């Protein structure tokens, strides 16, 4: 089992990697690239820059510096995060591989807000779910849909296949970004509403309305748009989330032992300097945690 896995290679992730590595831990950073920093054209308000740099340069320098210290890097889009079977350590999954580590630092940036589809928020827990592995059980023999178009959506759909009677993929107007197996029916129309019915005086999901006016009956909808974000991972593992940000202590620990969060995913000032600070604190705390496990 690895010591520490860091999800994300931006300022928070790299800073965590530097401090954890120098504290003696083995560190692997898993990243799919393409984070918020690279989108910044010019950075002139970060400490130590005599001349402005582009976000992409700053990001690349960060990664180079971490590699120089022996931080390992793995390329991949993280689609799953869970405590492993005996609840000692974490399992981190990408579409091609599974990794295990004693501690994890979530530094995957901020998550886009849920789409404004009527019924989506109201029916959460009543047929709308954000975690296939948590809730597949309730849809045994039923019809479910996954809202999404990429590896993450496919990952969630595949978790549901052995349980549900029928699994459909609703891409909400997009082309699937990955090859979808024939066992999953694909709908490309935009979803205009999640409809509900009343049973025993309680509401629950009954179908999906799409832009062409059609209503597709479903018992459950699993939301997995785009790539899995920090908040998606937090929900799956039971870390507290408030207002779309992960709740962390001063030492960046979440309520899940061994799981830390740093950077934009904890909200507040969405700036490199804050991310770097939180990464450093998280890296040190994670390294100390791992040392105490030995």
């Amino acid at each position, binding site marked *: 089992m690895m010591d520490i896995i860091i999800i994300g290679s931006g300022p928070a992730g790299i800073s965590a990697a530097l401090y954890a590595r120098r504290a003696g831990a083995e560190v692997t950073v898993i990243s799919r690239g393409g984070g918020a920093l690279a989108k910044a054209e010019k950075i002139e308000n970060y400490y130590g820059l005599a001349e402005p740099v582009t976000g992409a340069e700053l990001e690349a320098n960060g990664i180079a510096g971490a590699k120089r210290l022996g931080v390992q890097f793995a390329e991949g889009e993280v689609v799953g995060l*869970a*405590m492993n079977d005996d*609840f000692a350590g974490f399992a981190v999954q990408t579409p091609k591989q599974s990794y295990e580590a004693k501690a994890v630092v979530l530094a995957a940036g901020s998550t886009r807000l849920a789409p404004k589809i009527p019924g989506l928020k109201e029916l*959460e*827990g*009543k*047929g709308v*779910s954000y*975690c296939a592995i*948590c*809730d597949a*059980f*309730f*849809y045994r023999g039923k019809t479910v849909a996954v809202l999404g178009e990429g590896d993450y959506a496919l990952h969630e759909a595949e978790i549901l296949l052995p349980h549900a009677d029928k699994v459909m993929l609703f891409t909400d107007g997009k082309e699937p970004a990955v090859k979808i197996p024939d066992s999953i029916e694909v709908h490309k129309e935009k979803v205009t509403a999640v409809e509900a019915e009343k*049973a*025993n005086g*309680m509401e*629950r999901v009954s179908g999906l309305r799409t832009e062409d006016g059609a209503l597709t009956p479903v018992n*459950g909808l699993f939301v997995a748009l785009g790539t899995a974000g920090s908040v998606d991972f937090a*929900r*799956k*593992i*039971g*870390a*507290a*989330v408030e207002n779309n940000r992960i*709740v962390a202590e001063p030492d960046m620990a979440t*309520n*899940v032992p061994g799981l830390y969060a740093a950077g934009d995913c904890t909200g507040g000032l969405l700036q490199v300097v804050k991310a770097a600070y939180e990464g450093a604190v998280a890296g040190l705390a994670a390294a100390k945690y791992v040392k105490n496990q030995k």
Partner: protein
Amino acid sequence: MAVTVLNKENFKEEVLKADKPVLVDFWATWCGPCRMMAPVVETIAEEHPEIKVCKVDIDENPELAQLFNVMSIPTLAAFKDGQLIGTAVGYQPKENVLKLFA
């Protein structure tokens, strides 16, 4: 106070006929977030004797889960005078759970 384990035999008596507000934690052994919820629920049981705290293992009691439309776990359900007064889905810190009884 200890956490009462519920099943379909004692649910009516323990929850619907209780003389004080009841908190029910719907959980399962394989659910990570439920594991995170367990110590929070235990703490509420210790610190708030005015609330009866119970739990339902949905693997062993699927009918109870179905009866209360539980489709996601953990689900925390609050009851008063035999009526369901509120639910919260997913890991919740202590304050959020107590707010169900406000």
